[in-house]
């Protein structure tokens, strides 16, 4: 009986070791080498060359900036919308399950399928979105070529796919708030909006923090949407090339796997910094409570 707990967890740690941890370390190792897609066997030590290369590359900083801005304009509206929708779903509704399933439906759509559809919806000439905009007097926008337009379009795909999912997470947390908290504030004369601000939001704080972390991780690795919307360069002038996409482009389109490894490790370092900041914020919050 003694050995069995380890036997039960072994499959997971074997898979994680072989396909997660060891590759992660090797990615670091390859990032110090020149590895070309055309000659996989030949790996030459180059030290920090790949990183220096990135540091002085405009495209790297551009990708970092795009990852950040797209992350911001996809995450913030998404979570605010999710909060609002969760609030509505938390009322006593007729057909409550149906509403929830409908909100979650975009989650069933893959990144690839969703992006193919949105690319057509956003097409410059004859696309649904430009057609709808012309009713309010907006001239056709060349979404794929414009700077902010491309970023907006890519973000809208993320928002569409993930808002319902986050709404369900908020809804679950809202339903765990004890009713007497609302009752006592109601006795104090609080209206619905004040209850939402002074009861719901504070009680949801850990959940909100969690969704922020998860969305941040997701935003850091954003890749499929910009790839299918505008190719591996993320638009003709890299308008929406993210770090994840830049890595794919360098590694498998240009064929420089060493540099791609360095980009991957840069992403990892950025995530570690985010995690550290999050931990500090978390500790602060807990102390202040």
């Amino acid at each position, binding site marked *: 009986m003694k050995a069995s707990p380890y036997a039960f967890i072994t499959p997971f740690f074997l898979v994680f070791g072989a396909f997660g941890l060891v590759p992660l370390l090797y990615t670091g190792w390859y990032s110090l080498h020149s590895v070309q897609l055309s000659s996989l066997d030949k790996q030459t030590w180059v030290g920090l060359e790949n990183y220096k290369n990135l540091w002085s590359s405009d495209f790297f900083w551009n990708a970092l900036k795009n990852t950040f801005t797209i992350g911001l304009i996809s995450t913030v509206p998404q979570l605010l919308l999710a909060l609002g929708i969760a609030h*509505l779903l938390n009322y006593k509704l007729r057909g409550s399950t149906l509403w929830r399933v409908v909100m979650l439906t975009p989650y069933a759509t893959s990144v690839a399928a969703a992006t193919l559809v949105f690319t057509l919806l956003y097409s410059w000439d004859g696309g649904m979105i430009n057609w709808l905009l012309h009713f309010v007097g907006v001239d056709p926008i060349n979404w794929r070529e414009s700077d902010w337009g491309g970023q907006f379009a890519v973000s809208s795909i993320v928002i569409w796919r993930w808002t319902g999912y986050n709404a369900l997470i908020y809804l679950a947390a809202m339903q765990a708030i004890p009713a007497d908290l609302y009752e006592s504030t109601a006795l104090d004369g609080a209206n619905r909006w004040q209850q939402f601000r002074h009861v719901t939001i504070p009680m949801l704080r850990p959940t909100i923090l969690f969704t922020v972390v998860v969305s941040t991780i997701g935003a850091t690795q954003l890749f499929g949407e910009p790839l299918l919307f505008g190719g591996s360069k993320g638009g003709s002038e890299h308008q929406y090339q993210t770090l994840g996409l830049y890595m794919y482009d360098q590694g498998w389109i240009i064929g420089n796997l060493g540099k791609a490894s360095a980009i991957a490790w840069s992403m990892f370092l950025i995530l570690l910094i985010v995690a550290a900041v999050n931990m500090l914020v978390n500790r602060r919050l807990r102390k202040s409570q």
Partner: protein
Amino acid sequence: MTTSDLTLPQVDPAPKPKGDRGSRRPRMIGAGRQLHAGPITYVVLAVFSLISLAPLLWTAIAASRDNTRLAQTPPPLWFGANLFKNMQAAWDEVGLGTAMLNSTLVAGTITISTVLFSTLAGFAFAKLRFKFSSALLLLTIGTMMIPPQLAVVPLYLWMADLGWSNQLQTVILPTLVTAFGTFFMRQYLVQALPTELIEAARMDGANSLRVVWHVVFPAARPAMAVLGLLTFVFAWNDFLWPIIALNQQNPTVQVALNGLGTGYVPDQAVIMAGALLGTLPLLIAFLLFGKQIVGGIMNGAIKG
């Protein structure tokens, strides 16, 4: 878990936020607000539902038209007559038929294996005492933060070394069991499996395998079903590693859709038919099991 999605299964549902640990508040489902919804609530929800469903509905409309019509303004707002013709074209010419078969095989294998191994590991973390268990659990949760990008270069090199390029096992093996699944099952079993039941079975002389078979699996069954659904959705939609590891000769659905997007098929109506076909199995799953999937995501979010 390698995922190209936001979902770190990682993004996937939802380890419970740490901050909640301390406060053992009574859990009354639905206790939060039981105010009746007014007409405005229904109207706003209807608008959001429309936004949720319209792109999918329009995919079907576009898939039923032809390429010339899709290039004209205004865009079509109702169905045409070409749906089956376009679907057939997508199935045969683009090879979506092979892709659907491959994806079924890949996602099916991953689902069975993930559910099985996640239940075992989740059970160990939930109910068995062993050295370093809490540290290992923390490590498991931590691994959900690692983006798939950190693994793909070495995996690509190794698979090439093994002569496995373009074979399905390259996309199956890395996801045979996931951190998300393990954590999900652990969260469920902590509450759903009474420790006394395990002890009683052991008193009767049952060995570990018997305990798992006769006590753990029956108790875990509802959560295993939900994890199976979530895992299937994830595996069916996985993107980054499959498009690196496989090519158009032996694609999964997402690899085939990626091929459609990069332009060797110029017919937009066929592309839309492909997107629709590739999504259809999951839409059917949502239609049949939507309630369970919703429940799984919500429970994953609050249990702990």
